[in-house]
Every structure is written in structure tokens, then in C-alpha cells.
């Protein structure tokens, strides 16, 4: 078991940093009050920025544009997929590959240096092939895991794009899969009629196991928002799953070692945003009621800060001091302190609907629907 949750977090190759989706930056952050730079996209940016070890930043947008930028902000290449992109791409940990997928069901592997297409695949479904779930690289299978509205999780061979395995992804899947360690298994959430919200374990050989089922609310599983990815506390060996029911939610803590639910914390509001993990193991959850809740490792609600937003659509990220950064749809970047204090760090006229990410140099990249990514300098960055 790793000794920290940010051992691999220096290069954020996926939404939330790595396969754990924890969104935890190892150092304290002292954020500048105004952006030091910005990247221009071709459409609203609703996917997190991801990076490679060379410091390239990859920006995908709702007009289908995918771009690579150097650390100095210079655009290196640009390409376009059919359909908009709201699923955060993923970068291969060792090879120069960026994987992206669109609302038209197009999945591509791109060369990170040139943007050239390595492989391309159209996901065929009987209905709607759109991909909304952030992509995951599953090391144990050398596969890219995503889900489409065809109702399946797909593991695409990272080298060829061929479908290696598929699993049931439930109704209108939007939640990403998460993994940790050597990536022999990954975890996902799905809504299943007459059963509820299921936390599942999918193996690198195509197997599947239902770990836990939360009963659906009175409106049924098809009305439940299944958008937040499970996140993994690799230090404590816990998978956290957000299970919405009607207007409310339960945060379920699943022990990987014990193979059981440790606790379930009821939340007064449903949650669409993937939570973030603090260095002390606590969780930060922006909710659809416009607040940010903090839940401790034993499942107690530490605080809920009303941020004055109508709702939160996307998650935030934590720094090493317990600071939490999350954009709201009113165009405010909220900074939440460890004890529940809050302030607006920055404000624009369009909404924030994507999770921020830290670049390898410690700067914070905040995607915005005004077709920009705002880059904030970090005085604490080393």
C-alpha cells in the first residue's frame, strides 16, 4: 500500500491527477489573485486539462478541438474530433499517447508530440454512442476505459483501439472509472433499473463484481445522476462512491482489504461533481445545492459551506494544506479553507463546468466555458 496519496501526482495525466481521481496536489498552494496566463480553446472547455512528463498541456473542448500547449503557453498542435468533448482525455504513463473521445462516439489515440492520429475508432451502439465519462488508463490491461451511452463500459486496447472487454455501464452512463496501484482492477458506478446504484469492480481480464448496491430513490435508478467518479484513497485502501437518490446522496466508503462498506454518510443534496481527497484523508464534495461539504475519514460531516452558487457541476482539487479550489457555474473560482472558510478567488462572466488541475510546475489550470483555460501562478510551487 502506498505511503501517500500523491506519489504519482506530479504529472496529472487524467482528470483528478491520476487513476485514483483524488485531485490532491502534494504541496501547499499560494495562488495568485489573477491569472498569469490563459490558453485559448475552440469551444467551451468542460474537460480538465491533462499533462505529460514533458510539461505539455492538453486541452479538449466542446467544439471537438484538441490542442497541445507548451509550458510557456505556445500552441504546439491542434486537431479536431467529430462531436464535442466533455470527457477528460487521458495520457499514457510511459508512451507518447493522448486518448480522447467525443459526443459523437469517436475515440482516438493521438501522438502527444505531433497530434497525429495513431488510431481512431467509432463506437458503434444501437442508440447514442456519446462518451461523457472521463477516460482512464488501466495499466494492468494496457487499456483505455471509458463508457458510452450504448450502456457499456469499454476497455479499448491502448495500442490499437480494439475493444478488449466490455461491462454493463447502466443507464445514461456519465461516471468515470477509477483505479490505483498496478491497475489490475478498476471501479465504476452504474444505475440499474429495479436494483439501484451499483459500485462495481472490473478486472483487467474482463471480469466484474458488484461490491455494493444502494437502493434507488422513489424516482427510480433512471432518474439518479451517476456522474461523479469513484475516488480512491490509496493510502487507506478505500474506494469512495457517491450514490444519488432523488434529491439526496450517500457517500459510501468501501474498504478494499476488508471487502465491505465501512460507512455511508448521508448528504442533503445530490452530487454531480467528483469529490476530492485531502492529505488527511477527508473528502471535499461540491454539491447540486451550491455548497461544499467536508467528510472525515470516519464518515462524519465536518462542515458544509454554502458558497452562494446555484449548484456545482464539476469537482475541485485540494492542495497539501487542505485548501480546496472549485469553480462554480456563476463564474466564480471558490477557495475553501481546511476549516470551512470560503472566499472567491477569481471571477469571470461565464460558468466553470470542469474540474481544475495542477500542471507539473504547480500552477493551477482552470478550464472555463468562455473557451479559455485560466492559469494561476503558485508562489509555493517548487
Amino acid at each position, binding site marked *: 500500500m502506498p505511503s501517500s496519496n500523491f506519489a504519482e501526482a506530479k504529472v496529472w495525466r487524467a482528470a483528478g491527477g491520476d487513476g485514483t481521481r483524488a485531485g490532491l496536489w502534494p504541496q501547499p498552494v499560494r495562488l495568485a489573485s489573477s491569472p498569469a496566463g490563459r490558453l485559448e480553446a475552440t*469551444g*467551451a472547455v468542460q474537460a480538465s486539462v491533462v499533462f505529460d512528463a514533458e510539461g505539455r498541456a492538453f486541452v479538449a*473542448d*466542446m*467544439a471537438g478541438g484538441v490542442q497541445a500547449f507548451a509550458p510557456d503557453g505556445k500552441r504546439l498542435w491542434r486537431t479536431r474530433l467529430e*462531436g*464535442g468533448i*466533455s470527457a477528460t482525455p487521458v495520457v499514457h504513463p510511459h508512451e507518447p499517447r493522448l486518448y480522447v473521445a467525443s*459526443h459523437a462516439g469517436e475515440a482516438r489515440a493521438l501522438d502527444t508530440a505531433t497530434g497525429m492520429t495513431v488510431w481512431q475508432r467509432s463506437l458503434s451502439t*444501437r*442508440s*447514442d454512442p*456519446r462518451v*461523457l465519462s472521463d477516460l482512464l488508463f488501466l495499466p494492468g490491461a494496457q487499456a483505455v476505459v471509458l463508457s458510452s*451511452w450504448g450502456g457499456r463500459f469499454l476497455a479499448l486496447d491502448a495500442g490499437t483501439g480494439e475493444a478488449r472487454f466490455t461491462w454493463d455501464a447502466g*443507464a*445514461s452512463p*456519465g461516471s468515470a472509472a477509477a483505479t490505483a496501484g498496478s491497475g489490475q482492477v478498476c471501479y465504476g458506478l452504474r*444505475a440499474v433499473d429495479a436494483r439501484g446504484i451499483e459500485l462495481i469492480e472490473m478486472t483487467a481480464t474482463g471480469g466484474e463484481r458488484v461490491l455494493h448496491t444502494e437502493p434507488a430513490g422513489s424516482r*427510480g435508478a*433512471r*432518474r*439518479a*445522476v*451517476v*456522474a461523479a467518479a469513484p475516488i480512491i484513497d490509496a493510502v487507506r485502501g478505500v474506494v469512495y462512491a457517491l450514490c*444519488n437518490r*432523488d*434529491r*439526496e446522496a450517500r457517500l459510501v466508503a468501501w474498504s478494499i482489504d476488508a471487502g465491505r462498506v465501512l460507512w455511508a454518510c448521508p448528504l442533503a*443534496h*445530490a452530487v*454531480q461533481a467528483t469529490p476530492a481527497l485531502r492529505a488527511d484523508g477527508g473528502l471535499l464534495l461540491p454539491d*447540486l*445545492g451550491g455548497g461544499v461539504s467536508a467528510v472525515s475519514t470516519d464518515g462524519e460531516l465536518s462542515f458544509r459551506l454554502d458558497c452562494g452558487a*446555484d*449548484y456545482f*457541476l464539476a469537482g475541485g482539487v485540494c492542495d497539501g494544506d487542505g485548501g480546496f479550489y472549485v469553480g462554480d*457555474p*456563476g*463564474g466564480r473560482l471558490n477557495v475553501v479553507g481546511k476549516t470551512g472558510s470560503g472566499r472567491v478567488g477569481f471571477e469571470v*462572466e*461565464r*460558468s466553470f*463546468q470542469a474540474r481544475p488541475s495542477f500542471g507539473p510546475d504547480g500552477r493551477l489550470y482552470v478550464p472555463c*466555458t468562455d*473557451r479559455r483555460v485560466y492559469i494561476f501562478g503558485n508562489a509555493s510551487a517548487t
Partner: protein
Amino acid sequence: MKQKPLLARHAPRCPGGILTRRDFLKATAASAVALPFAQPPTVFAQAASASRVPRSVTGLGLCPRYEFAAVRRVLGRMFDELGDVRPLVKGTHVTVKVNLVNTSAEDVAGVPLWLTVTVHPVVAQALGSLLVEYGARAVVFCDQLPFVSIEADAFEGYGFKLAEFNRVMDQRARFENTRNRGRHRDYALVPVPGGGELARAWEVNRTYVDTDVRVSLTKLKSHVSGGVTGGLKNLFGVPPSSLYGDDLQAEPDEAAMGYRSSTMHNCTHRPRTSVSSFTGRSVEGDHGFNVPRFIVDLAAAFPLDLVVIDAISTIQTAEGWWLGSMVSVTRPGLLIAGRNPVCTDAVAAAVMGFEPDAPDRTWPFVNGSNHLALARRRGLGENRLKELETAGLSLEAARFEFQPTYRRLAG
């Protein structure tokens, strides 16, 4: 409230006129001479193609939050940019068809109706307040709502509180639930000019015709059958449940509150209007064929003087919670307004990242016909982007891509 005689300024407000049942039947019998009720659809397709269709500027404004002063300021600036809204409403009786829906007891995962599916009351209040400032004598906000009451209390679940409206509207606001005949003695029978493709005429609550100025106040949304919801699609709420509702038996029923799925989506049932008002050219079970054509037949019969679109906070992929977790909340942070509904909706579709002249059965009209193109071919307005003009924010700056309309399972 004492009012001046209606229809004095702009009458007739319906190009097909307002007929009695006897007149309608007479005209139908003499259709070859009096009214072209029996024109085949191909005539519509050709009618406007050779001639210039109406065009008007569409205003775009940024507005990130529902704060009354800010919404009013942005909307007022947009109206000034449109140029002729003040003279349009001065001294008039204004009817505002609001985009509400067939229950007020729902939400999208706890996010309230007005942030997702229906027009936010603050936008309606800001609009009403401006109309009063411009000299409107009275402003009636209306939609058909599934409540017994036809009075203001029917609107409260949608956040529409009459007292709050009147506070900012100099006591000139009124709410009407138009699910039936309401306070009126009879219905208005409104022929569709040119005979209509699926509807020859509409029989509606007189609120929609006893007026000087007709406004469509709507939410910008995706729509599974119509592709996009804008000022035109909002008119789908005009035909009353009492004559078109799913809960009708053999006769009209003033107590009916049902939706119009079987009459205007599936088209398995005829409405219980006083005359045979549908042409019979609908395709049973094909929402994607029927809904866009009914939208155009409504737009032809009830021309709109102004469209205002609440695109601040809404949903994408589909039009309401009834489509389950397919819908998701999104936040364009925009207001859109224009004098011509086709132009305004076309610009709105472009803001959403879609081609407003897209071929049928392609995104965003993936499940059927493009009603914006149908409307242009009927001569109602321009939907081709290169022919359209915007004011205020540029289209490029306003653009906010939506996730596309859900594609229905084939078969």
C-alpha cells in the same frame, strides 16, 4: 381591471383571422376560393424558397446569474439594440406565453425547475418590468398548467408569485392558466394561414388572441423531438388540454389537465375541437415528423412580436426530467431576444453549437425534421446563419456548446 377595447392597435393579430365555427366551415367548403385550406405540403416547401423571408436582428447578452437588477439591465440593453421594442409595446395589452411545464412538483436531482426546465421568474419579472416601463397597459403571463385553478395560485409552484411581479410592474401583471376556456365566454378559432400542414386551425383560450402584442418567453433547451426548444417550440403549450389533452374522452372537458401526447406527438387521437381542425397528414407514432410540423402550424397562426429566451441556467440533451438521467444541467449564462422567432431560434441553435439549417435527422434535429427550416420554407423567418444578424454580444463570443440531443433508439 378596466381596459380599453382590445385589438385596436394591431388587429387582426392572427393572419388567418379569428373565425366562428360557422365561418370556418363556410371557408373550408369554399377553400379553393376563400382560404387555401387544402394545399399539399409541397406547396409550403416551395412557397418561400423563391422569395425573401422575414429577417430581424437577434440580441445576445451575457448574464451569469439570476439577479433582478442585472437581468433587467441586460434585457433592457438588448431591447434598445433591437430598436423597436419600446414603440411596439407602448399603450398595448401584452400577452406573454411563458415556458412552464406540466407539473411544478419536480426538479432535476434537486436543482429547481426554474434553473433547469422552466423560465426563471426573475427573467419574467425583468421582462414585465421593462414592458411596463415602455408603456404597456397590461401584461398577462400565461401557459396551460395542470391545476384546477386558472388563477395566479396555479403559477406559484414555478416560482411565479403575482405579488412579486406586481411589485416591479406597477400592478399591471396578471397570470392566466390557459388549460381551458378560462375566464372567457368562448374559445377563439384561429385558422392556420395557407391551411397548415398538420393543423388547419387551432381552437384556443382567447388570451392568446385578445391581445395587441404576443411574446414568447422560453427556456433554451435541447428537445428530443424538436431538436431545440426556443420561442417557436414554446407555442406547443397554446392548444388547451380541454380540447387537446390526453385525458379527454369523447367530448371536450373544461376539467381536463392532461398533456397533448396522443394528439400532437403520437397523433393517435384527434383533438376535440368544435371543427375538424387537423389535416390528417400526421404520421402516427413519429414524434420527429409531427412535432416540428405542429410547431410551424402554431407559429403561422400565432405570429410572435417578440421572443425572449432564458439561457442563463438550463438543461441539455433533452427537455425535461421525464427523460431521466439523460438530461444534465448546464449554464450558458445568456439572454437571447429578437423580434422574429425563426431568426431568434436559429441564432439560439447556433449559440448551442448547432447548425440551424441542418438537414433533417442530423444533429440537433436527429430524431426528426428541422422545424426552423420548415418555418423558413413557410415564409415565417430566416434560419440560415449567413443571412442573420446579431446585436450586442457577437455570436462567436456567445457560443456555448450543448451536448447534443439524445438519439432515440432505432425501431
